[in-house]
């Protein structure tokens, strides 16, 4: 039997740190998309809560369970992060390998995202989830205590890191400009 080795989307690209901001790749965890079938929203929510400790969140929100989390990610679409899904009356797919996930920490995330995302990320509350864009890439942005979690398609990993790095460097460099 051959052996396949796994590679994360940001392998060799991260972490990086500048001007009190840090960018790191998040650990690879199971990601499952869940799209409840007609009339099954409640049933899916209940089943999920029972299985992973988190129900389906409201639009634009996330709910945390025991080391798991459920994100709203679009119209009638949710991502279960950190666990595989139980049997559900829903369209369910494995998305674990489809996403680049990074954490932008250090309290200046909104300043960074102001250069890449048209949404007022500074106005988001912890646990808020938005579908928007980073540069030209469709993205999922989650507001965290320490900063922001950003998700774009896996294949965009190098562009994501490049664009964030450019902006982080720009902000750090502008700190040096006095008045």
């Amino acid at each position, binding site marked *: 039997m051959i052996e396949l080795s796994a590679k994360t989307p940001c392998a060799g690209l991260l972490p990086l740190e500048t001007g009190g901001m840090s960018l790191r790749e998040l650990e690879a965890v199971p990601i499952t998309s869940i799209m409840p079938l007609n009339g099954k929203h409640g049933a899916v929510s209940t089943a999920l809560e029972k299985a992973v400790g988190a129900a389906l969140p409201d639009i634009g929100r996330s709910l945390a369970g025991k080391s798991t989390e459920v994100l709203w990610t679009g119209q009638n679409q949710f991502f279960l992060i950190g666990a595989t899904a139980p049997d559900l009356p829903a369209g369910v*797919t494995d998305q674990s390998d489809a996403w680049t996930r990074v954490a932008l920490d250090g309290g200046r995330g909104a300043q960074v995202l102001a250069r890449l995302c048209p949404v007022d990320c500074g106005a988001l509350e912890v646990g808020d989830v938005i579908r928007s864009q980073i540069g030209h890439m469709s993205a999922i942005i989650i507001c965290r205590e320490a900063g922001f979690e950003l998700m774009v398609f896996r294949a*965009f990993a190098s562009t994501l890191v490049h664009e964030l790095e450019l902006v982080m460097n720009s902000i750090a460099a502008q700190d040096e400009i006095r008045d």
Partner: protein
Amino acid sequence: MTDGSHEPNGLVEVHAGNQITPNVRATQQEIHDSLSAVSQNHWGSLKWDVLELNDLLSPFLSAGFYYKTFMWPKSFWEKIYEPVIRRAAGLGSLSMKNNSDRYDKAYAFCDVLVIGSGPAGLMAALTAAKAGAKVILCEEDFRFGGRLNSETEEIGGKPGHIWAAEKIAELRAMDNVRLMKRTTVTGAYDGGTYGALERVGHHLADVPDGAPVETFWRIVARGAVYAAGAIERPIAFPSNDRPGVMMASAVRSYINRYGVAPGQKVAIFGNNDSALRTVLDLQSAGLEVAAYIDSREDAQIEGDFRIYKGATVAGVKGRMGVESVRIRDGNSEFFVDADCLAVSGGWNPTLHLTCHMNGRPQWNEAIAAFVPVPGMIPGLEVAGAAGGTFSTKGCLKSGAFRAKTVLDALGIESRAPRTPQADDSDYAISPLWTAPGKGRAWLDFQNDVTIKDVKLSAQENFRSVEHMKRYTTQGMAPDQGKNSNVNALAVLADATGRSISETGTTTFRPPYTPVSIAAMGAFAQGSGFAPQRYTTSHDTTVSRGAPMIEAGLWYRPSYFPQEGETHWRQSCDREVEMVRNSVGISDVSTLGKIDIQGPDAGAFLDFVYINTFSTLKPGKVRYGVMLREDGHVMDDGTTARLGAEHFVMTTTTAAAGAVMRHLEFVHQCLVPDMDVRFISVTEQWAQFAVAGPKSRDLLNTLLDAPIDAESFPFMGCGEVNVGGVSGRLFRISFSGEHAYEIAVPARYGESLFEHLLDGAAALGGGPYGMEALNVLRIEKGFITHAEIHGRVTAFDIGMERMISAKKDCIGKTAAARPGLLGEARDQLVGLKPAGAVKEMHAGAFLFDPEAGATRENQQGYTTSTCYSPTLESTLALGFLRNGRARHGEVVKLVDHLREVETLCEVCDPVFLDPEGGKARD
């Protein structure tokens, strides 16, 4: 001439790195140690400018001169006239090198945007900030305070600039306030969005590494107070373009703010009370007031200097600078020595932004100026001088009041702060646009438009202000008429016998001041233009020297050169033969993969595809074609049934997004009751084509359990394990060979690709690129978007019989419309060379052999061509009128661009293995 961003004359080029920034206003550029500023727009030295020869020719160079003169002969325009005129007329030059500077663009959000930080803006910002609103205060200058920095008047018993600095300190201490100086708000747009340009690094000798020189902001504000002040306007009199003729307000700025004496003997020419301040400032600076000329008989002026009431300036002596001023007083004319002439024709409210959403300002007789009317920009209130309130106290009050109006509308409770003590004197003006005298009197200093030009425009019946503008080019230079608009249309009004308000203004459009394209396109320079989408095999592919080509945002290998191969065709031919004879590997992860689940998944597919999928058995794959609503082919691909209620659709690479959008539309709008769910899984799977007679042998060296013809028959699919990893295997072929596509979760993509390449090499195979893939599919007559380019129907590509009669589908009815079927259609055919010339190109046209190669005789066109090493011939796919009935005929292929003419035999589009035995066996 001026002291601000509206400066018409002091334009320079700033050279930095390999970058030249033209048209920088010298009045706005801060000086630093390494600043390299070069004067622009002269031929020879500035002192002996060759272009000044035009001055001698001026009687012939009136407005409309170019239009009238350079009409003939027609061919001269491009080759002779335009280059010469451009040389003379262009504004600044470019380095013609890649931009070495960095630019940012960014979004900002606030409750109240305050534009301008003079007395009105500061009071507005304070009112909003104290009410707890999120405030952004933008100031174009490098110092907050507006005119308070340039005048000597007091606010609250303190010098105005000290008061301003204190208020700025107060605002800076508040968390809800963001102060943005060196930031010009350049445009007002829908939804409370404003464009703004911040000059971040232009004033620095060393821009810190990584920092931008400019940031283009898009500020989204719930409300805004516009306190942009006013711009003093000149008076048109002969020789008013001489250096030393300046705006009175600018003279005060240079004295009070910068400590620079614009002249030792300064004459003043005005028609309003504000010019009088200049005298006091000159005197306290110890400079001589040469004369005070006021056009008003009843002007209230007293002082220890020469005063001429009811007089005007009839000219200026001196070429490189003012030497004396010619004064016309009653019937007498005389000269007064002066080295500077301060002019004030009154003030124009800076109302530009308020007109950006097509509002028109109103003429106000009292101040002889246009003022904004309420509601021109939703959510924006105009305060202070921008609204025509010119006294300092009036501005302070207006700022607070307008901020309160905005806050009220937002439901934010506020209290206007107490108005500090300040000057509240009236502003008296008697309009004066032009002063009589011999010689050219300039209106637009940048585009050299004189009074005479405007009159000529009216005389030639270009009487509308918009026509006059285009006829004379008045207001079309970088200052966009900030110094000349009102005077020019006053002259036009006079020439056409209308009032100024009847004449109206031209349209104000963003940006208020020039915005560099580089700032608006920040982050998009070079490869920043579009994100790069890399497959998991990218690094391995690049390390093998494969040139990459773009497919949408994806990058795919063109071919994999081997040692000794010097031309792409050598690599391509080898790769084709490799697939036909052993086995080839190609990354096909870029194809769209859409996971479709739910009880109605089959019915949904039946509705979007022309053929039936609900009858497909689990473990099987079927080729499908989908149409647009208009009956034309949208996309094609295979869809696999993984379970009773579970399908995976593949789309072409380029159309993946469009198909996903189409499915969303169909589900949400047309069949919302269907119980079906779908989501993209394109990025979840790394998928590789394994094609060729030895493909199964190769797979069986890698899979945990071997496969055979029974477990994976042609068009079969199922789960497989590779290295203990669960994957998917599809027995489908885009090359016509016995072939598979194997998919694993993307994290294993690179690893599997390398295993596949190693395994293939052992069997005499290897990777193949897009060129070989293209040849393989053309040999088999398989279509791509080269063929289904948006204007072809299922009938055209010979697939109309696939449209199921047993069910409805998107585009079915429209596809049956008259004109979309029958002999008149261009139908898909194959073409083989039939004469001595073998060359064929895509995009060439088809004609009858005897017919001329003209538009009228056109019979069709080619879409794809290749050299087939398998058939040792060039091959083409194309569309030919009634082509399916014409197999065997000879047509003439003409490529007008490359001047190629080839006789071709029309044949079936499937050149190789028409029975399909190779893929099935």
